[in-house]
């Protein structure tokens, strides 16, 4: 059985024929679209390495069936920088050493973008830590991750008010 799926990935519309309806969005991204920035840590929805934004909301792409993403808008780590300028979350992860081995990083960054979009965490470190707790980092770079999310939140809030860069 094959079926055709159309979706927008990082602003580009793509249509693809799937010969297996059980293909996950993660495998679609990595294996068919060569977008290998999104990582596979557990393939079970338990580590967050595969986090992408689907219609602006963060999801574990290893749990989403590609077939169910027809018509969806997907944003991955590769689509985050705009015209060569890093997204504030990316810049903050670099500035605050929000990683060591880097394997969880694309997922952390996408999760952080999603969290900030949800507007729930504010500038409360405790709520940021809670909001990021679905993304495991075995290197334990959580201090840098928390600081990075807090700073990116400030930058983005400033932008909205038009007071910051």
């Amino acid at each position: 059985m094959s079926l055709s799926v159309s979706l927008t990935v990082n602003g580009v519309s793509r249509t693809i024929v799937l010969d297996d309806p059980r293909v996950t969005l993660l495998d679609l991204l990595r294996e068919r679209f060569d977008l290998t920035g999104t990582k596979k840590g557990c393939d079970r929805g338990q580590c967050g390495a595969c986090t992408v934004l689907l219609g602006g909301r963060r999801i574990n792409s290893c749990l989403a069936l590609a077939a169910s993403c027809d018509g969806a808008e997907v944003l991955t780590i590769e689509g985050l920088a705009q015209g060569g300028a890093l997204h504030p979350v990316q810049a903050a992860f670099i500035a605050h050493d929000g990683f060591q081995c880097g394997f969880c990083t694309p997922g952390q960054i996408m999760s952080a973008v999603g969290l900030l979009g949800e507007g729930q965490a504010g500038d409360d470190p405790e709520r940021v830590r809670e909001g990021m707790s679905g993304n495991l980092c075995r290197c334990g770079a959580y201090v840098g991750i928390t600081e990075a999310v807090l700073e990116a939140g400030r930058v983005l809030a400033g932008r909205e008010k038009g007071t910051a860069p």
Partner: protein
Amino acid sequence: MSLHEPLPHDSAARHASGEALYIDDLPEPRDLLHAAIGLSARPHARLAAVDLAAVAAARGVVCVVTAADIPGVNDVGSAAHGDPLLAAAEVEYAGQAIFAVAAETVRDARRAARRAQVTYHDLPALLTVDDALAARSFVLPSKTLVQGEPGAAIARAPHRLSGRLDLGGQDHFYLEGQIAMALPQEGGELKIYSSTQHPTEVSHMVSRVLALPCHRIGVEVRRMGGAFGGKESQASQIACIAALLAHHTRRPVKLRLDRDDDMVLTGKRHGFRIDYEVGFDDTGRILGVDFLLAGHCGFSPHLSGPVNDRAMFHADNGYFLENARIVSHRCKTHTVSNTAFRGFGGPQGMMAIEQVIDEISRHLGRDPYAVRRVNFYGKAPRNRTPYGMEVRANPLPALTARLARTSAYARRRREIAAFNRENPWIKRGIALTPVKFGISFTLTQMNQAGALVHVYTDGTIHLAHGGTEMGQGLLVKVAQVVANEFALPLERVRITATSTEQVPNTSATAASSGSDLNGAAARAAAITLKARMARVAAAEFGVPAGEVRFANGAVRAGNHTIGFDELARLCHRHRVSLSATGFYRTPGLAYDPAAMRGEPFFYFAYGAAVAEVEIDVLSGEYRILRADLLHDCGRSLNPAIDRGQIEGGFVQGAGWLTTEELWWDAQGSLRTHAPSTYKIPACSDLPRDFRVAFWAGRSHAPALHRAKAVGEPPLMLAMSVFFAIRDAIAATAHHRARPRLDAPATPERVLLAIAALAAGGGAAAAGVVAA
């Protein structure tokens, strides 16, 4: 210059953009096959029949291999033999590899692997350390270290205690699972991409398994997505299976383990059973101590010899043990063979003595930090370790005093006592624990490194060395060392993948030694090149070579200044080689492994931590309220990287001692084989208030640029969390009993310990833990 600067990780921008490539991200070659492994369902059995017809017939399958298909030797044991690549006649743990299959897709390969018909003839299985001790089942002979006269000293002591502590193991849970890709090349050569800390060993093992000479095998790794010791020697099995399948199919083969398979197939941190007897005086000074360290090695010796040695070498931690006996049993069980894990047995040894100190303190009703102080290494003769090495310039008294001050330890202990009087259902606890960790491989021959440096005629540098990058920031540190030597900006140095084809015969990147060893080797190569270049400049400008200086991207010879790139071109015109190797071996290691005496370590790394926790008496759940870490990095090569190592090490150590529980069922199957059941720390588990500082004492480190190794030592700072939890549990019984608490201190264990105290269990304690 770049040395000692807090520069970002070499791949920082690539990590943040998603461009950093791990092996599973590399473009897949045409014709790539995917592999899967068939695993044993039984802990100990004879393989009566292995029927793989259905596997071979499954969709997409191209090749199935068993032990019989191995052209060379069926053994991937590193320090010792005894680890079959594929089980031949007998399986010795549930999860052991029996066969491997290569198929057109990952899904085909994994599906096919499940269709094997294996007939097992079960044999008796020993599953726990207790089983092994009862059966006297060991993978290696037991060892004993003795200093002084422990038996007599304990017998004479005014106070005596004995007890037992069980420590669980730990899964590495590197976020990037084990992976290798083997590509046949022309002329029967093999190129292997392996997520390994030890490319040289991978090439040796592939050579052994395929009976191929080493020069036909190239192994490369650019980076790993975490390793923590789990890819020190275990990566070999994965690479060898991919290579074996590539050998038989003449096609490239990738083997990426599924997370569950990774967790059941691969070894972990050694669990330990620790029995102790100690004699001490009224101040808590240890007069004699007797330890039995029983390490849970699993079915084969693997790295268990050096891991258990290191446990013995760290059973003193920072304390002088005038009269000590340390007996080490290396227990053989029918479980996965345990392996290297950050600390390599050291943390388990240190937990033994820290438990003893905590017990003494509770028995006497003295503050544990006070008891620690009276036992710290001091001046001669109180400065000799049980293995006969002198502890020189021990910073722990000053370092812990500073930490006690900056963390307001004494005041907070009083506040906690007051809090605990008011709150029946929430209890708090606090602990200050030190770390002293020996740096060097205890196998002396591993303390060597090589490097290769080229200078191109545009003044840029190509740097290769034997160290591998697993997130610890090694590559940027070594590049800083080289840039500093040439007085060039860091961007001029190109950091390359680690490859056996660039630098041969390397050691594992392990034992925290990566930057000490490889940095020194790379520096040696740079010094050789500088000398050659200086001679050319000297001749050109008519000054003595000794007056040629490299500074700020340029070279000064007398009154002349030329760009580094210009000098490189000048050397080329004069036909002077701009490529050099560098080599380093750690000096001064005088250690007799047979007697376990001498100086196995180049130096010690130190640190200390204060943790405060809060436990919920009704649920056993807890939270780290605050942690203050003070760590000695010597003159840090890169404080940003080192800070990450300290924080991350603490988090990982806290996971080991609190939530990470490995649980095998009665059939010997690991049931905690996925993150749903095996709980590593999440962001929300960070201490609510987390303070990290560097010890600013003068660095006596003898290593490169007076920096100290920092990969492993901070993990043990998390012992403070365990003992703070123990303190909080004791508070439920007003410190009048000593709780029985094993590690990991899961909420269930905490609850059981509280319940036992409430039921009147727990050995007697003096009732006050005063500051």
